[in-house]
Protein backbone atom coordinates (compact mmCIF):
# COMPACT_ATOMS: atom_id res chain seq x y z
CA UNK A 1 0.00 0.00 0.00
CA UNK A 2 1.60 3.30 -1.01
CA UNK A 3 2.18 5.77 1.79
CA UNK A 4 -0.28 8.60 1.78
CA UNK A 5 1.09 12.05 2.19
CA UNK A 6 -1.51 14.14 3.94
CA UNK A 7 -1.56 17.69 2.70
CA UNK A 8 -4.36 20.16 3.02
CA UNK A 9 -5.81 21.38 -0.34
CA UNK A 10 -3.76 24.27 -1.72
CA UNK A 11 -6.82 26.53 -1.98
CA UNK A 12 -8.06 25.71 1.49
CA UNK A 13 -7.99 29.33 2.60
CA UNK A 14 -10.16 30.46 -0.28
CA UNK A 15 -12.79 27.71 -0.19
CA UNK A 16 -15.46 27.34 2.42
CA UNK A 17 -16.58 23.85 3.35
CA UNK A 18 -19.98 23.06 1.92
CA UNK A 19 -22.89 23.72 4.28
CA UNK A 20 -25.25 20.78 4.19
CA UNK A 21 -28.61 19.69 5.48
CA UNK A 22 -29.42 16.04 6.06
CA UNK A 23 -33.05 15.22 5.41
CA UNK A 24 -34.72 12.22 6.96
CA UNK A 25 -38.08 10.77 5.94
CA UNK A 26 -38.62 9.43 9.43
CA UNK A 27 -41.23 6.73 8.97
CA UNK A 28 -39.53 5.25 5.92
CA UNK A 29 -36.37 4.41 7.84
CA UNK A 30 -36.08 0.72 8.74
CA UNK A 31 -33.08 1.10 10.99
CA UNK A 32 -30.57 -0.88 8.89
CA UNK A 33 -27.70 1.32 10.02
CA UNK A 34 -25.84 1.57 6.69
CA UNK A 35 -25.79 5.38 6.64
CA UNK A 36 -24.42 5.51 10.16
CA UNK A 37 -21.81 2.81 9.66
CA UNK A 38 -20.48 3.88 6.28
CA UNK A 39 -20.46 7.65 6.56
CA UNK A 40 -16.75 8.42 6.01
CA UNK A 41 -16.85 11.35 8.43
CA UNK A 42 -19.00 9.76 11.12
CA UNK A 43 -21.61 12.49 10.88
CA UNK A 44 -24.52 10.26 11.86
CA UNK A 45 -25.28 8.16 14.89
CA UNK A 46 -28.20 6.12 16.15
CA UNK A 47 -30.67 8.19 18.13
CA UNK A 48 -32.91 7.13 20.99
CA UNK A 49 -35.98 8.19 19.07
CA UNK A 50 -38.23 5.47 17.73
CA UNK A 51 -40.26 5.97 14.56
CA UNK A 52 -43.61 4.49 13.57
CA UNK A 53 -41.87 1.25 12.53
CA UNK A 54 -40.37 0.81 15.97
CA UNK A 55 -36.74 1.33 14.96
CA UNK A 56 -34.16 3.84 16.10
CA UNK A 57 -33.70 6.44 13.41
CA UNK A 58 -30.31 8.10 12.81
CA UNK A 59 -29.47 11.56 14.01
CA UNK A 60 -26.74 14.02 13.09
CA UNK A 61 -23.95 14.13 15.65
CA UNK A 62 -21.97 16.91 13.96
CA UNK A 63 -23.22 18.49 10.73
CA UNK A 64 -20.05 20.55 10.35
CA UNK A 65 -18.13 17.39 9.51
CA UNK A 66 -20.39 16.56 6.58
CA UNK A 67 -18.74 17.08 3.18
CA UNK A 68 -21.75 16.05 1.11
CA UNK A 69 -20.20 12.90 -0.27
CA UNK A 70 -23.85 11.69 -0.45
CA UNK A 71 -22.96 8.12 0.43
CA UNK A 72 -25.87 8.04 2.88
CA UNK A 73 -28.21 9.13 0.08
CA UNK A 74 -26.84 6.46 -2.26
CA UNK A 75 -26.72 3.53 0.17
CA UNK A 76 -30.08 3.92 1.89
CA UNK A 77 -32.29 1.02 0.72
CA UNK A 78 -35.46 2.83 1.74
CA UNK A 79 -35.05 6.30 0.23
CA UNK A 80 -35.30 7.60 3.78
CA UNK A 81 -32.25 9.86 3.98
CA UNK A 82 -30.68 12.38 1.63
CA UNK A 83 -28.25 15.23 1.94
CA UNK A 84 -28.60 18.58 0.23
CA UNK A 85 -26.53 21.68 0.11
CA UNK A 86 -27.69 24.70 2.09
CA UNK A 87 -27.33 28.13 0.41
CA UNK A 88 -24.73 28.39 -2.42
CA UNK A 89 -21.04 27.99 -1.55
CA UNK A 90 -19.24 31.28 -1.15
CA UNK A 91 -15.68 31.68 -2.43
CA UNK A 92 -13.73 33.99 -0.16
CA UNK A 93 -12.01 36.74 -2.07
CA UNK A 94 -8.30 37.24 -1.38
Amino acid sequence: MPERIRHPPLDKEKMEQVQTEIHLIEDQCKGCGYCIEYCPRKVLEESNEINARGVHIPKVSDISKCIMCSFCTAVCPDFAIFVEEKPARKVKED
Partner: protein
Amino acid sequence: MVLETAHPYSKYLRAEMMPHIWCPGCGNGIVLNCFAHALDELKFDLDKLVVVSGIGCIGRTAGYVNADSFHTTHGRALAFASGVKLANPELEVVVISGDGDLFAIGGNHFIHAARRNMGIKVLCANNLNYGMTGGQQGPTTPLESFTTTSPYGSIENPFNLVHLAAASGSTYVARWTTLHVRRLTQSIKKMLQKKGFSFVEVLAQCPEIYGRYNKMRSGLEMMSWFKRASVVENFTDPSKAEISADKIPVGEFVDVEKLSYEKMLHEKISKINERAMEMVK
Protein backbone atom coordinates in the same frame (compact mmCIF):
# COMPACT_ATOMS: atom_id res chain seq x y z
CA MET B 1 -31.61 16.87 10.66
CA VAL B 2 -34.47 18.16 8.58
CA LEU B 3 -37.62 16.07 8.67
CA GLU B 4 -38.81 15.64 5.15
CA THR B 5 -41.48 13.90 3.13
CA ALA B 6 -40.20 13.92 -0.45
CA HIS B 7 -37.01 12.31 -1.71
CA PRO B 8 -35.16 13.80 -4.73
CA TYR B 9 -35.64 10.54 -6.65
CA SER B 10 -39.37 10.40 -6.01
CA LYS B 11 -40.07 11.18 -9.64
CA TYR B 12 -38.53 7.82 -10.57
CA LEU B 13 -40.72 5.95 -8.11
CA ARG B 14 -44.45 5.30 -8.03
CA ALA B 15 -45.64 7.20 -4.98
CA GLU B 16 -48.69 4.98 -4.47
CA MET B 17 -46.51 1.88 -4.24
CA MET B 18 -44.00 3.23 -1.71
CA PRO B 19 -42.75 2.27 0.84
CA HIS B 20 -41.54 -0.94 -0.75
CA ILE B 21 -42.01 -4.39 0.76
CA TRP B 22 -38.33 -5.24 1.23
CA CYS B 23 -36.88 -6.17 4.61
CA PRO B 24 -34.76 -3.79 6.71
CA GLY B 25 -31.30 -3.72 5.20
CA CYS B 26 -32.30 -5.55 2.02
CA GLY B 27 -29.81 -5.04 -0.79
CA ASN B 28 -32.65 -4.75 -3.32
CA GLY B 29 -33.45 -1.30 -1.97
CA ILE B 30 -29.90 -0.21 -2.71
CA VAL B 31 -30.12 -1.67 -6.23
CA LEU B 32 -33.27 0.36 -6.83
CA ASN B 33 -31.58 3.44 -5.40
CA CYS B 34 -28.58 3.07 -7.72
CA PHE B 35 -30.86 2.47 -10.67
CA ALA B 36 -32.82 5.65 -9.92
CA HIS B 37 -29.56 7.52 -9.47
CA ALA B 38 -28.28 6.31 -12.85
CA LEU B 39 -31.54 7.37 -14.54
CA ASP B 40 -31.21 10.75 -12.85
CA GLU B 41 -27.62 11.31 -13.97
CA LEU B 42 -28.50 10.38 -17.54
CA LYS B 43 -31.64 12.55 -17.46
CA PHE B 44 -33.30 9.48 -18.90
CA ASP B 45 -36.52 9.88 -20.88
CA LEU B 46 -38.90 7.79 -18.79
CA ASP B 47 -41.33 7.53 -21.70
CA LYS B 48 -38.80 5.34 -23.48
CA LEU B 49 -38.05 3.07 -20.54
CA VAL B 50 -39.67 -0.32 -20.05
CA VAL B 51 -38.80 -2.23 -16.88
CA VAL B 52 -39.46 -5.96 -17.02
CA SER B 53 -39.02 -8.11 -14.00
CA GLY B 54 -39.41 -11.73 -13.04
CA ILE B 55 -40.69 -13.30 -9.89
CA GLY B 56 -38.84 -12.74 -6.64
CA CYS B 57 -38.15 -10.00 -4.16
CA ILE B 58 -36.25 -7.98 -6.75
CA GLY B 59 -39.07 -8.71 -9.16
CA ARG B 60 -41.21 -6.20 -7.30
CA THR B 61 -38.97 -3.47 -8.75
CA ALA B 62 -41.14 -3.27 -11.86
CA GLY B 63 -43.99 -2.09 -9.67
CA TYR B 64 -41.86 0.60 -8.05
CA VAL B 65 -40.21 2.32 -11.01
CA ASN B 66 -42.29 5.10 -12.55
CA ALA B 67 -42.15 3.84 -16.14
CA ASP B 68 -43.98 1.33 -18.33
CA SER B 69 -43.40 -1.93 -16.53
CA PHE B 70 -44.34 -5.59 -16.63
CA HIS B 71 -44.05 -8.32 -14.05
CA THR B 72 -43.81 -11.63 -15.91
CA THR B 73 -44.05 -15.29 -14.94
CA HIS B 74 -41.06 -16.86 -13.19
CA GLY B 75 -38.00 -16.98 -15.40
CA ARG B 76 -39.57 -15.57 -18.54
CA ALA B 77 -38.59 -11.93 -18.21
CA LEU B 78 -35.93 -12.14 -20.93
CA ALA B 79 -38.21 -13.88 -23.42
CA PHE B 80 -40.92 -11.29 -22.81
CA ALA B 81 -38.35 -8.49 -23.06
CA SER B 82 -37.14 -9.87 -26.39
CA GLY B 83 -40.65 -9.51 -27.78
CA VAL B 84 -40.92 -5.96 -26.46
CA LYS B 85 -37.54 -4.89 -27.84
CA LEU B 86 -38.03 -6.40 -31.28
CA ALA B 87 -41.51 -4.94 -31.62
CA ASN B 88 -40.26 -1.44 -30.77
CA PRO B 89 -36.46 -1.10 -30.88
CA GLU B 90 -36.72 2.56 -29.81
CA LEU B 91 -37.63 1.43 -26.30
CA GLU B 92 -34.93 0.91 -23.69
CA VAL B 93 -35.80 -2.43 -22.16
CA VAL B 94 -34.26 -3.18 -18.78
CA VAL B 95 -34.76 -6.54 -17.09
CA ILE B 96 -34.36 -6.31 -13.33
CA SER B 97 -34.51 -9.74 -11.79
CA GLY B 98 -32.87 -12.15 -9.39
CA ASP B 99 -30.37 -14.97 -9.45
CA GLY B 100 -32.98 -17.75 -9.31
CA ASP B 101 -35.36 -16.18 -11.79
CA LEU B 102 -32.65 -15.43 -14.35
CA PHE B 103 -30.41 -18.47 -13.98
CA ALA B 104 -32.41 -21.42 -12.73
CA ILE B 105 -35.82 -21.44 -14.38
CA GLY B 106 -34.77 -18.63 -16.69
CA GLY B 107 -31.32 -19.95 -17.54
CA ASN B 108 -32.20 -21.03 -21.03
CA HIS B 109 -33.74 -17.68 -21.90
CA PHE B 110 -30.72 -15.85 -20.53
CA ILE B 111 -28.13 -17.69 -22.60
CA HIS B 112 -30.14 -17.34 -25.79
CA ALA B 113 -30.92 -13.65 -25.33
CA ALA B 114 -27.20 -13.08 -24.72
CA ARG B 115 -26.23 -15.30 -27.65
CA ARG B 116 -28.51 -13.38 -29.98
CA ASN B 117 -27.18 -10.11 -28.57
CA MET B 118 -30.64 -8.66 -28.01
CA GLY B 119 -30.29 -5.04 -26.98
CA ILE B 120 -31.65 -5.76 -23.52
CA LYS B 121 -30.01 -4.57 -20.29
CA VAL B 122 -30.05 -7.04 -17.41
CA LEU B 123 -29.59 -5.97 -13.82
CA CYS B 124 -29.33 -9.07 -11.64
CA ALA B 125 -29.66 -8.75 -7.87
CA ASN B 126 -27.84 -11.84 -6.64
CA ASN B 127 -28.78 -12.55 -3.04
CA LEU B 128 -27.50 -16.14 -3.10
CA ASN B 129 -30.89 -17.76 -2.42
CA TYR B 130 -34.62 -17.67 -3.26
CA GLY B 131 -35.61 -14.93 -0.89
CA MET B 132 -39.27 -14.38 -1.67
CA THR B 133 -40.28 -17.97 -1.00
CA GLY B 134 -38.41 -18.15 2.30
CA GLY B 135 -34.75 -18.76 1.53
CA GLN B 136 -34.26 -21.91 -0.52
CA GLN B 137 -31.09 -22.97 -2.25
CA GLY B 138 -30.52 -21.42 -5.64
CA PRO B 139 -28.07 -21.65 -8.54
CA THR B 140 -25.72 -19.16 -6.91
CA THR B 141 -25.87 -20.45 -3.33
CA PRO B 142 -22.24 -20.92 -2.18
CA LEU B 143 -21.03 -24.44 -1.42
CA GLU B 144 -21.69 -25.64 2.11
CA SER B 145 -23.96 -22.74 2.97
CA PHE B 146 -27.22 -23.27 4.77
CA THR B 147 -30.64 -22.59 3.29
CA THR B 148 -34.09 -23.99 4.00
CA THR B 149 -33.60 -26.69 1.36
CA SER B 150 -29.96 -27.37 2.16
CA PRO B 151 -30.13 -27.79 5.92
CA TYR B 152 -26.89 -29.80 5.96
CA GLY B 153 -24.98 -27.40 3.79
CA SER B 154 -25.32 -27.04 0.03
CA ILE B 155 -23.46 -29.59 -2.06
CA GLU B 156 -24.11 -27.85 -5.35
CA ASN B 157 -21.45 -25.81 -7.06
CA PRO B 158 -22.78 -22.32 -7.69
CA PHE B 159 -22.68 -20.53 -11.01
CA ASN B 160 -20.05 -17.95 -11.72
CA LEU B 161 -22.51 -15.51 -13.30
CA VAL B 162 -19.85 -13.28 -14.77
CA HIS B 163 -18.34 -16.27 -16.59
CA LEU B 164 -21.75 -17.48 -17.74
CA ALA B 165 -22.72 -14.08 -19.12
CA ALA B 166 -19.38 -13.58 -20.82
CA ALA B 167 -19.44 -17.06 -22.35
CA SER B 168 -22.99 -16.54 -23.63
CA GLY B 169 -21.90 -13.49 -25.56
CA SER B 170 -22.88 -10.53 -23.41
CA THR B 171 -21.20 -7.35 -24.68
CA TYR B 172 -20.94 -5.81 -21.22
CA VAL B 173 -20.41 -7.77 -18.02
CA ALA B 174 -19.84 -6.25 -14.60
CA ARG B 175 -20.19 -7.32 -11.01
CA TRP B 176 -20.42 -5.07 -7.96
CA THR B 177 -21.79 -5.36 -4.46
CA THR B 178 -24.33 -3.09 -2.83
CA LEU B 179 -21.48 -1.46 -0.97
CA HIS B 180 -19.98 -0.20 -4.25
CA VAL B 181 -22.83 2.24 -4.78
CA ARG B 182 -20.85 4.71 -6.88
CA ARG B 183 -19.32 2.19 -9.22
CA LEU B 184 -22.56 0.30 -9.53
CA THR B 185 -24.32 3.50 -10.59
CA GLN B 186 -21.60 4.14 -13.17
CA SER B 187 -21.93 0.59 -14.51
CA ILE B 188 -25.68 0.96 -14.81
CA LYS B 189 -25.19 4.23 -16.65
CA LYS B 190 -22.71 2.59 -18.99
CA MET B 191 -25.06 -0.32 -19.53
CA LEU B 192 -27.94 1.99 -20.43
CA GLN B 193 -25.83 3.59 -23.10
CA LYS B 194 -24.61 0.41 -24.74
CA LYS B 195 -26.33 -1.06 -27.75
CA GLY B 196 -25.97 -4.82 -27.31
CA PHE B 197 -26.88 -7.26 -24.54
CA SER B 198 -25.47 -6.05 -21.22
CA PHE B 199 -25.34 -7.65 -17.80
CA VAL B 200 -24.59 -6.23 -14.37
CA GLU B 201 -24.59 -8.55 -11.38
CA VAL B 202 -25.02 -6.98 -7.95
CA LEU B 203 -24.31 -8.97 -4.86
CA ALA B 204 -27.20 -7.92 -2.67
CA GLN B 205 -27.48 -8.87 0.94
CA CYS B 206 -30.47 -10.89 2.16
CA PRO B 207 -29.97 -10.36 5.89
CA GLU B 208 -33.31 -11.75 7.05
CA ILE B 209 -32.88 -15.16 5.48
CA TYR B 210 -29.59 -16.01 3.81
CA GLY B 211 -27.62 -13.88 6.27
CA ARG B 212 -29.36 -15.29 9.30
CA TYR B 213 -28.82 -18.88 8.18
CA ASN B 214 -25.15 -18.27 7.47
CA LYS B 215 -23.91 -16.43 10.54
CA MET B 216 -24.33 -12.94 9.13
CA ARG B 217 -27.27 -11.87 11.22
CA SER B 218 -27.64 -8.30 10.16
CA GLY B 219 -27.29 -6.36 6.95
CA LEU B 220 -24.24 -4.67 8.47
CA GLU B 221 -22.49 -8.02 8.90
CA MET B 222 -23.14 -8.97 5.27
CA MET B 223 -21.96 -5.55 4.15
CA SER B 224 -18.78 -6.00 6.12
CA TRP B 225 -18.25 -9.32 4.30
CA PHE B 226 -18.57 -7.41 1.04
CA LYS B 227 -16.12 -4.82 2.30
CA ARG B 228 -13.62 -7.34 3.54
CA ALA B 229 -13.69 -9.75 0.63
CA SER B 230 -14.28 -7.66 -2.49
CA VAL B 231 -11.37 -6.95 -4.77
CA VAL B 232 -11.63 -4.83 -7.88
CA GLU B 233 -10.21 -6.84 -10.77
CA ASN B 234 -11.24 -5.09 -13.93
CA PHE B 235 -11.01 -7.04 -17.17
CA THR B 236 -9.53 -10.14 -15.63
CA ASP B 237 -10.51 -13.59 -16.87
CA PRO B 238 -14.25 -14.03 -16.17
CA SER B 239 -13.77 -17.77 -15.66
CA LYS B 240 -11.63 -17.02 -12.63
CA ALA B 241 -14.10 -14.60 -11.07
CA GLU B 242 -15.67 -17.03 -8.59
CA ILE B 243 -17.14 -15.79 -5.35
CA SER B 244 -15.91 -17.33 -2.11
CA ALA B 245 -16.00 -16.43 1.56
CA ASP B 246 -12.58 -14.79 1.25
CA LYS B 247 -12.77 -13.23 -2.17
CA ILE B 248 -15.45 -11.45 -4.19
CA PRO B 249 -13.94 -10.31 -7.49
CA VAL B 250 -15.78 -7.22 -8.66
CA GLY B 251 -15.33 -4.86 -11.55
CA GLU B 252 -16.06 -4.71 -15.25
CA PHE B 253 -15.09 -7.91 -17.01
CA VAL B 254 -16.28 -7.48 -20.57
CA ASP B 255 -16.91 -4.33 -22.55
CA VAL B 256 -17.07 -4.86 -26.30
CA GLU B 257 -19.11 -3.65 -29.22
CA LYS B 258 -21.11 -6.07 -31.33
CA LEU B 259 -23.98 -5.49 -33.71
CA SER B 260 -27.24 -6.04 -31.83
CA TYR B 261 -29.90 -8.48 -33.02
CA GLU B 262 -32.49 -5.84 -33.76
CA LYS B 263 -29.98 -3.86 -35.81
CA MET B 264 -29.09 -6.95 -37.83
CA LEU B 265 -32.76 -7.78 -38.32
CA HIS B 266 -33.47 -4.27 -39.52
CA GLU B 267 -30.59 -4.41 -41.98
CA LYS B 268 -31.74 -7.78 -43.31
CA ILE B 269 -35.29 -6.51 -43.78
CA SER B 270 -34.03 -3.43 -45.63
CA LYS B 271 -31.88 -5.59 -47.92
CA ILE B 272 -34.75 -7.96 -48.67
CA ASN B 273 -37.09 -5.10 -49.44
CA GLU B 274 -34.49 -3.57 -51.76
CA ARG B 275 -34.05 -6.81 -53.67
CA ALA B 276 -37.80 -7.26 -53.93
CA MET B 277 -38.07 -3.76 -55.35
CA GLU B 278 -35.48 -4.59 -57.98
CA MET B 279 -37.25 -7.80 -58.98
CA VAL B 280 -40.49 -5.94 -59.37
CA LYS B 281 -38.91 -3.30 -61.59
